[in-house]
């Protein structure tokens, strides 16, 4: 996620680069390479060590392909819900005053701190077929939540909740209220004010948050492995499939599917970056 850089603060090209700048840049570049770049290169090397064809075959094995598809559609569904509800949450937290607001504001970040495994266990306790709520849904409505795709979406929603809220919140706080007030005096309804004035100014942060949460979701393992049921071709997501391939000595298959996940995540983050760049202009 790149933040807007104030041109006045950035060093112009003609200025001489100081030794300290060069040193710091070298250090960060080496750090970045060691921590991120090299491990990524290793995975790519591993996934392609037997060529494109084998890579393609590995990701098209029926169980692998299904796992990737399941990951993508559950993540997409989560993203949709998260986009709408995250926006609403951010709006409520910024614009309204109500008792417990500070507490809710503090709780928003909690999913980042809770081990995702715990998230999974908690959801099983809440929606599991043996608990009141889960049993009701299953018996009365024939709707299985846990050990089925809906459980995956729930888990993903939980862990990615902060992303949309926290990217929108600061921007929403900075929105100039004068325009809104003017529109209100001219007789615009709240709805019109929101769509015509507020929404355009937070559209990019919204997209950014949504793409971030999608990227985060495709790689999620800890909570999903608990709630999904993990039946190949039904409820096994890509990250759990990768574990199976590692455990079964098929590292090539594991790396190949990981590359697909990473490429998708990278694509999302690049789009988000590109949108920001366009926005700055």
């Amino acid at each position, binding site marked *: 996620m790149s933040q807007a850089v104030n041109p006045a603060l950035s060093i112009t090209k003609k200025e*001489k*680069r100081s030794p300290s700048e*060069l040193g710091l*840049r*070298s250090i960060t*570049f*080496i750090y970045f*390479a*060691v921590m991120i*770049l*090299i491990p990524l290169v290793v995975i790519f090397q591993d996934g392609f060590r037997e060529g494109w064809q084998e890579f393609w075959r590995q990701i098209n*094995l*029926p*169980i692998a392909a299904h796992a990737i598809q399941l990951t993508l559609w559950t993540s997409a569904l989560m993203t949709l819900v998260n986009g709408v509800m995250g926006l609403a949450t951010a709006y409520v937290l910024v614009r309204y005053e109500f008792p417990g607001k500070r507490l809710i504001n503090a709780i928003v970040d909690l999913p980042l701190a809770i081990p995702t495994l715990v998230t999974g266990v908690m959801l*099983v*306790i809440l929606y*599991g*077929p*043996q608990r009141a709520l889960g049993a009701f849904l299953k018996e009365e409505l024939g709707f*299985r939540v846990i*050990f*089925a795709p809906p459980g995956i979406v729930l888990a993903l929603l939980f862990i990615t909740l902060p992303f949309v809220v926290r990217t929108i919140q600061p921007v929403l706080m900075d929105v100039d209220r004068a325009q809104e007030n003017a529109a209100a005096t001219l007789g615009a309804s709240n709805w019109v004010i929101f769509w015509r004035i507020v929404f355009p100014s937070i559209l990019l942060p919204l997209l950014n948050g949504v793409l971030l949460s999608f990227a985060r979701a495709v790689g999620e393992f800890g909570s999903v*492995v608990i709630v999904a*049921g*993990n*039946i*190949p*071709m*039904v409820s*096994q997501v890509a990250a*759990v499939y990768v*574990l*199976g*391939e590692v*455990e*079964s000595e*098929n590292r090539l298959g594991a790396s190949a599917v990981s590359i697909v996940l990473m490429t998708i995540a990278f694509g999302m983050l690049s789009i988000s970056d590109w949108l920001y760049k366009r926005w700055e202009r």
Partner: protein
Amino acid sequence: MFSKLRKTFLFSLLVIALITTGCSANVTATEVSSTEAPATGGEVKLTLAAYTTPREAYGEVIPAFQAYWKEKTGQTVTFEESYLGSGAQSRAVVDGFEADVVALSLEADITRIEKAGLITHDWKSTASKGMVSNSVVAFAVRKGNPLGIKDWADLAKPDLEILTPNPRTSGGAQWNILALYGSLLQGKVAGVPADDPEAAHAFVVNLLKNVTVMDKGARESITNFEQGVGDVAITYENEVLVGQQAGQDYELVIPSSTILIQNPVAVVDTYADKHGTREVAEAFVNFLLTPEAQEIFAHHGLRSIDDGVAEETADQYPAVPGLFTIDYFGGWSKATPDYFGEEGIFIQAMLEAQVPTTE
């Protein structure tokens, strides 16, 4: 200016190159970090890398061995214990976790270490052929067995919820599936003729339609069952017995035909020699096979490999009429690819069971 930039870049590349070549040894970290010194005088340290199931048993066996060794040699043995899933533990040892002794769930995990050249002796030359404990694949059912589940044939009935771990994520789960196939192919399952792979396949497909949760390991699977999920868990006898000891009220059902689970143990030659612990490591492995240690294993749900102890505990561990071993499938080196490989028999059944999805 550009040359300066280039220099930075080139320097960074050089550092990266150095790091990558230096990293090619490929060392993986494990739970326990160990920096061993060779055995000196009155104290010696032994690192045990085990799978998770016998953790409680080792908690009792190790003090017994420490007392035994102290009395015999005057030396104090300290233990560093690491418990992980069998496959993960095996790979950790291969990647440089310097354990003197490995105790794992299945032979294939020892074979991996052997193939890496770290175990060089004939570890199967002990009286028990390298094994330290046994168990059998069995079912856990709800209290009072309300669905009347007695044997494999009952598991393919409609409207049943079965839990069994995924054999791709858990090597130990392969025991469960092979117990099923072995029983089917030997004609021990009602309605399925012997030596009829197609009938066996059809049965497995039907049974798989009842499987609602495939956890990543045996422990997660039984934990889910304890949470109230499912009607039957295909698991190991020892998991059920340990659960019952801990106060769980589910019941154990041993099918009329099942596979004998054999858990191996071995000294890792390379590391034991490096640490100078060969003598005590070998003594520990031998101690595990004594009646004293075997009784401890028997208390923790595991069948004994010692004939005397097995006879004493026969009430608790009834003989299974149709018991077979991994040899029926030609050993692990054949069973794993045949059943769980990319085109494996079980993988095919799994694909067929889920297409079309009737959820």
